[in-house]
């Protein structure tokens, strides 16, 4: 089971680098969606026997992270009719290098931390930390509101990966609450993105500079 899981995590970590290196908004959205779907099927790989509930959660996650949220972002992108190029505040090559360095750092850090025996072989902690770093890099290093939302999604994916370590000990109610909160958060963000577009006629957050010291 660990081999399959590690393969998926490796895939998600590779997608982090793709996200950092891509120069087009539609492909960034696609990468974030793909990563969400990869994450969504992980609980099925972890569980020893397939329970109905686990399948339902997996389907919900894949649908929300892989279809609903990307569709929302694409719609915002189309209605805003914005230029599809990402104007990076941190260049693509530097962000790739930083992302790769972060990944190595995450693997090293994860091997230093005390883990339970059943997690020794798994890449969960390393993948989680690497995705959190990649998400933060995108948040800071890209100027379009939608690309920042993608960064936030990748950050969230990293946290989700960490959450898988606790999958057997967190009560379902709490898990459901967390998932609900995150979904609402993205919806609210989507609404605000839409309003910003109408108010500023742009989704470039570099134009949000009225408020400063």
């Amino acid at each position: 089971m660990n081999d399959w899981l590690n393969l998926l995590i490796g895939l998600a970590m590779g997608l982090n680098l793709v996200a950092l290196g891509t120069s087009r908004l539609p492909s960034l959205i696609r990468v974030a969606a793909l990563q969400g779907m990869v994450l969504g099927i992980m609980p099925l790989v972890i569980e020893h026997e397939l329970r109905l509930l686990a399948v339902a959660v997996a389907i919900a996650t894949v649908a929300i992270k892989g279809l609903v949220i990307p569709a929302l972002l694409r719609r915002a992108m189309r209605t805003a009719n914005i230029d599809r190029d990402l104007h990076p505040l941190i260049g693509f090559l530097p962000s790739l290098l930083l992302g790769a360095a972060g990944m190595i750092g995450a693997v090293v850090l994860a091997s230093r931390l005390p883990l339970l025996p059943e997690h020794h072989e798994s890449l969960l902690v390393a993948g989680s930390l690497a995705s959190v770093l990649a998400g933060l890099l995108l948040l800071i290093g890209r100027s379009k509101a939608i690309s920042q939302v993608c960064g936030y999604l990748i950050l969230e994916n990293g946290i989700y990966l960490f959450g898988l370590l606790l999958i057997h000990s967190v009560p379902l109610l709490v898990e459901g609450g967390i998932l609900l909160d995150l979904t609402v958060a993205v919806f609210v963000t989507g609404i605000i993105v839409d309003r910003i577009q109408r108010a500023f006629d742009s989704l470039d957050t570099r134009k949000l500079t009225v408020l400063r010291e």
Partner: protein
Amino acid sequence: MKELLLIIVPLVAAALAALWPNNRTRPWFLPVAALMHTLLSFGLLLYPPEAPFHAWFGYDPLARAMLPAVSLLFLGCAAYGVPYLQLRSERSNRVFVPAFLAALGLMSAAHMARHLGLLWIATEAVTLSSVPLLHFNNTPRAFEATWKYLLVGGTGIALSLLGSFCLGYASLHGGGTGDLTFAGLVAQGASLSRPWVLIAWVLLLVGYGTKMGLAPMHTWKPDAYGEASGIVGAMLAGGVTTVAFTAVLRVRAVVEAAGAGVVANRTLLVIGLFSMLVAALFLLSARDFKRMLAYSSVEHMGILSFGAALGGAGLWAAFFHVWNNSMTKGALFLSAGNIRRAAGGRTVDEVSGMSVITPRSAALFVMGLFAVTACPPFGPFFSELLIVKSAFGTGHGWAAAFFLGCLLLAFFGLTRVVFAIVYGRPRQAAREMDPKFRETLAVIVPPVLLLLLSLWLGLFTPEVLRQSWTAAVQQLSPTP
């Protein structure tokens, strides 16, 4: 189970308000629900219910020491909200009123959450419910502030989720069975895995510290407070920050039980003093009187963090300061809202002579200034004095001196702005402003009452409050 009504009543009121058809009468839901909430929370303050050990929600000593203050502040804001929303009758309040009420219910939930996961869920929900409140004015500036609030606040809250997971893993690694209530985690104590506890502490402090507005995670605060209306600013500065402070204290108790209390206290001390310094420096150059209030809030969060770092008597004083902060911030934000409405501007370059145009609000604003800068005999003077005393008593002499220096700088910064807008000759723009705005009793009485409460708290701190703060200190560090 009476304490659950503190969550249910505002949420039910929010649902009813969302269905209510009339825009003009809908704001009345605010004071009605707020009054019920206040009566409940004070009833429970006087007759505290038992909080079962493993309960997920409970009106435990910590919630009892803080929640009534938020409740009282909300009552003041709600009373002010009725005339305010009637002045703004051109905008639909169909979203504003339910979101404001929902925020109250969720804040109660977050105060009473005794489970790591639930605490996160409630705090995140408070953040989300305040989004529609921030862009109520619908101006481009308001959207800019909302975007920054979402982005910075969202990242902070995401990091606190990661921190919660790390703390959960620390428990799992230490042989825990997945009991993630704070009581359970504290009971697990030293068997928690230390490296994981330390990672969790850093992430949770950054996460909830963002919500509290500790420097350097305070960057959303000036924008959000500057653009939000007075009642929303007051609620954010006196209510939401209190929620985050409660969260930090609950986590700190676990870290202390795990044997890393010294590290936790040191980080709280440093981050508290750093926040005070940053706030004081920005206050010295502030020109906008609403953004000024945001920096003052950063300063007071620094004071709370400093007090909590001292433990024992310092922590007790921090609870006292939570009450004072809520009352004085309420008075300041509400009177600043009046001034802002009458003046039509917000910076010292645009506004002056408000003592002529809005004499009552200007007087209140000046009194509020004295209260917030800890001039006797207002409450903050006494709580800050206790914090300084406890700092000297625990051998933090240098830190106390630094603390006093920052307070002095902040005092200079605040008085400079406040007197610049209150005195002098009124500007032409303000004379031509909206003649609809009158200083009616409805917009003056709530801030006056909040200010009087701050005075009363300082002069005659009720015994029941003192005793509730002592109980909360005992809950957080059972061995003094």
